């Protein structure tokens, strides 16, 4: 080997090292390497935990797997959206729980938004009493733990309501007692399904019309009564269907027999307590978000819009709200997520939400890991759906720069 060759070789060696260092100095490469390390670490940790769980459970002879979902549940549920009896499976019971969670979360989100918006605006009122009362509302509801509020509501509803035999009857067929609210419901009739279909068609038609009207307005400046046409489509079509279907008015009336009312629809005190608690608690947070959103729009915007000759309502709708919503939507999304997850406190007051049903299931079958995994999957699905919807809405209302 000549001296010359060895010099070339060593230079080539330096070149490799230099190239490696160069590569390492590239931010993208370095970032990728760190990410691989982190992901690898997380995967290893998860594998270790999973292995540990499986090994320990085998050592103690605890059965595993999701086979228990097929077995008969054997426990009763008093508040179900789908038919359920103790002879149904754990899987069905879990589904009942998931639907109950969704029901209370969706209603809670709507009511908390309405109440929160009212309180938030009221806090900005120039009326001293209204403003003070709303600040008190916010401070009290935000600072008392939710579980405590739920206990209070459950206890108040149980003790303040009369027994079924002395139930209030504010409207014929509507009974309020400590067993909940009993409502008459229309008896089963094929027309109800058709009305549902008609409503869906109506919503679609209203949406198409509003898009068309907006295009027309952009092109010609002519305005169309979008609201009234929409209302006609969404409410009028089902009403027409009902008339055509023979206008059935038979009601399934609740009736006091023995211990309790039979027939009709029941809304339990536990459901009301949970709904009230979640709504009132979350509304306190939403009120503050709404207030901050409105305050974030400088008063100059309102003045400028007014100087263009816009009416007060239009100023709010076209100038202030679009800017305020940009501030309001993202934190409100997290409040919606909080409300949904907080609904698991139902366990404390005996509303049959998913966690309540799941706890009973895991207690009877010993499948704690599986049940918790199911909780996580369901909450993750619900939360991601809310996030997606809210992010989509956020993009719709974001300022579009031209």
């Amino acid at each position, binding site marked *: 080997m000549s001296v010359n060759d060895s010099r070339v070789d060593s230079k080539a060696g330096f070149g490799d090292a230099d190239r490696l260092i160069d590569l390492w100095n590239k931010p993208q490469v370095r970032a990728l390497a760190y990410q691989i390390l982190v992901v690898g670490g997380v995967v290893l940790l998860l594998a270790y935990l999973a292995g540990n769980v499986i090994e320990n459970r085998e050592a103690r002879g*605890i059965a595993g797997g999701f086979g228990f979902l097929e077995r008969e549940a054997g426990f009763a549920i*008093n508040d179900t959206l789908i038919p359920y009896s103790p002879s149904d499976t754990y899987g069905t019971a879990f589904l009942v729980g998931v639907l109950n969670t969704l029901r209370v979360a969706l209603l809670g989100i709507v009511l908390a938004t309405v109440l929160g918006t009212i309180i938030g605006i009221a806090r900005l009122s120039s009326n001293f009493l209204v403003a003070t009362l709303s600040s008190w509302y916010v401070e009290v509801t935000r600072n008392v733990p939710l579980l405590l509020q739920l206990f209070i509501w459950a206890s108040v509803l149980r003790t303040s309501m009369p027994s079924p035999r002395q139930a209030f009857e504010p409207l014929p067929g509507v009974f309020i007692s*400590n067993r909940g609210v009993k409502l008459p419901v229309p008896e089963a009739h094929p027309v109800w399904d058709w009305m549902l279909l008609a409503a869906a068609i109506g919503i679609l038609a209203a949406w198409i019309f509003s898009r068309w009207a907006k295009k027309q307005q952009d092109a010609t400046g002519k305005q169309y009564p979008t609201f009234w046409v929409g209302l006609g489509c969404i409410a009028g079509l089902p009403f027409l269907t009902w008339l055509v279907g023979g206008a059935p008015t038979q009601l399934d009336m609740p009736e006091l027999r023995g211990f309790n009312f039979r027939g009709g629809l029941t809304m339990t005190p*536990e459901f009301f307590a949970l709904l009230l608690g979640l709504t009132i608690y979350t509304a306190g947070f939403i009120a503050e978000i709404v207030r901050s959103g409105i305050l974030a729009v400088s008063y100059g915007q309102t003045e400028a819009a007014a100087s263009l000759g816009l009416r007060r309502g239009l100023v709010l709708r076209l100038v202030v709200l679009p800017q305020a919503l940009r501030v309001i939507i993202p934190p409100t999304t997290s409040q919606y997520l909080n409300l949904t997850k907080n609904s698991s406190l139902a366990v404390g*007051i005996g509303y049959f939400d998913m966690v309540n049903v799941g706890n*009973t299931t895991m207690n009877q079958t010993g499948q704690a890991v599986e049940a918790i995994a199911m909780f996580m999957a369901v909450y993750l699905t619900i939360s991601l759906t809310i996030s997606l919807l809210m992010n989509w809405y956020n993009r719709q209302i974001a300022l579009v720069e031209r």
Partner: protein
Amino acid sequence: MQLKQILAAGAAIAALGVGSAAMAGETLDATIERGTLLCGVNTGLAGFGTPDSEGVYSGFDVDFCRAVALVILDDADAVEYTPLTSQQRFTALQAGEVDVLSRNTTWTLTRDTALGLNFTAVTYYDGQGFMVPADLGVTSALELDGATVCVQPGTTTELNLADFFRANDMTFEPVVIEGLDQVNDAYFSGRCDVYTTDSSGLAAIRNSVAPVPEDHVILPEIISKEPLGPVVRHGDDEFFDIVKWTVFAMVQAEELGITSENVDEFMDSTNPVVQRLLGTTPGMGEALGVRESWAYDVIAQIGNYGEVYDRHLTPLGLQRGLNALWTDGGLMYAMPLR
């Protein structure tokens, strides 16, 4: 030389074997090392397990924890109590948060097997009953069609309830709340027509929670078998044995008429059964892996089964019934100590 090495290797393997056997007794080892017994008890059920104003637990179930602590650690107060709800109890035991669960827990096949638990012995033969307000005028559980029933979740009670109404072709509306205080509140505020749990629990609640106990009646029907007793985890047979035989020793003592008062008089008894129990004839303690005076200490400091029963449950108005000794027509029967 060669032979010695082989023997040494053999001894080492044997030692390893012994070592791994000791590993199997990990609950026992951990308890001895920690110096306290981890015991899961009720969050507060009068007579069975309830804390006083200073947070010190007492009751029928609690005394069995104290007895086990006395046998293993020679100190009845070396117990760390964890109050558990009906839903938390099995997970807490499986996860090792508690080592023995003495919390009116019913022995069932599923719990004994798939949950990875072992029931040691029955300390109380119970059955599920119903309590209703007296002014409801109900005299039999078969009149409860359509009633609203308060019950705790995750219990055999919840399942028996559904079975009973199904079997008798009746309907009911369950109100299922985890916290005992919350269920009590729901029943006494009139949210439910009926309260169901083990009849011993009903008696305890009627006597300790009801504003006026006479306003509530316990219906005559007993709709299930509820054998209650201490539970341990799978995986430590020595610990399992100690808990089991502590209970048997207390029952055996009652059968022999040995009480905390007179136990010293029995020390010079010539009855071989008594001698084996009290350790004057050694062997039983060694077999269990504890000191020979284990049963003597339990009887002297905590009492026999009947004394524990009289101390905690008789004041609640609970008759011995099924829990009388087998010699008195009951079901309490200790396996032979020999």
